[in-house]
């Protein structure tokens, strides 16, 4: 299947899956490790990818993906282009709160080559929250991992009463103010 769909597979019991898409593999690895180190009450499965579409050979082994985090490195325009190309392979119903954009490398102001305006517009067009982080620093990495974990919990439906869509619109409304 070329396009990732949110509800084409049944959810597994007490577990969630997050897909990290980004061009920088070492950063992805670091973030994945930070997420796994966190204390959680459910099983978590992290899939790393440099770009979509995912190879269809292993499709039947892959579980249902609850959250896609697109990692954009603010120092390289190539990562932004990569993410934009991969966005075409995501089903539209994913963008109802199950996608978030993670902008890394914001600590180094001198090396910014991607405009924050472009990233913000991306978030607006795809109605998804944009999180800024600096994964080189330990503290911020842990904090980002905790945030992603929380989002994952909500997106996989493990928190009763809050759905991914309501959470997404809550974030957007509070960001507008």
């Amino acid at each position, binding site marked *: 299947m070329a396009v990732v769909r949110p509800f084409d597979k049944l959810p597994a*019991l007490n577990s969630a*899956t997050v897909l990290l898409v980004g061009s920088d593999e070492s950063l992805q690895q670091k973030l*994945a490790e930070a997420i796994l180190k966190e204390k959680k009450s459910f*099983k*978590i*499965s992290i899939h*790393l990818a440099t770009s979509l579409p995912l190879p269809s050979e292993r499709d039947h082994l892959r579980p249902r993906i609850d959250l896609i985090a697109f990692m954009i490195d603010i120092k390289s325009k190539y990562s932004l282009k990569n993410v934009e190309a991969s966005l075409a392979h995501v089903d539209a119903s994913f963008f109802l709160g199950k996608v978030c954009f993670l902008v890394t490398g914001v600590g180094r102001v001198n090396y910014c080559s991607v405009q924050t305006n472009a990233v913000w517009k991306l978030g607006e067009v795809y109605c998804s929250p944009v999180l800024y982080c600096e994964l080189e620093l330990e503290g911020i990495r842990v904090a980002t991992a905790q945030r992603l974990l929380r989002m994952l919990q909500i997106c996989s439906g*493990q*928190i009763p009463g809050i759905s*991914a869509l309501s959470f997404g619109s809550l974030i957007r409304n509070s960001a507008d103010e």
Partner: protein
Amino acid sequence: MEPPQREPGVAAAGAEEGPVAKLDVLMLLRLREQMKQQLMECSTTVHASEESYPDHVVEEKLIKTTIEDLEREMEEVKVSFQNKTLVLHRIQLMDALRNKVKQNDDDSRLILETMKHIIMLSTAILESQQQAREMEEKLNDIKRKRLLLKQAGGNKLLQIHTTMKKQKKELASMEVGEMLEKIRNNFQKEKEMTTLIQNIFQNIIIGSRVNWAEDPSLKAVVLQLEKNVSFL
């Protein structure tokens, strides 16, 4: 990257039966809630994809109007909330002021002084505003009178104008009267001449010492002459 596994609650084997059983039940209840949530999400997606759009444009418009209404309501709520916050601040301020004044120390005396000063200034303001209003009234009266006078003056001028016009007309019509005047003058002259000739005739007849009473024709002439023509 761990492969998903079944929940570990079933595999837990503790020494005490009670807490382990409770843990199991809690775990199961939590799982039940999770599954309910996930079911709700899946069914909503299914329902959403089932909808047909026969009137796509109309629905869009409907959605837009509903969005606008909701946004307006949100704005109203925000505004009312801000107003209420302001009122709350005002009430808090008043309360703090009241408490402070009750304490009766230097600050409160200063506050009382300031308040009295404010009251004095406000009364002064009211008085001067009253005076200003009275002055304005007087000014308005004078202006009104001036307007009336102007109007009266205008009317009078109009009257003068009409009268002068009438006079001119009369003058024009009097030219006809001039002819009448001439006629009158001529008539007057003729009368005077006739009276004169009458008198002359009388004097001639009387001066000639003729007994005019005997001659009937002379008598008729003299009596005729008695008719005074000038009183015609």
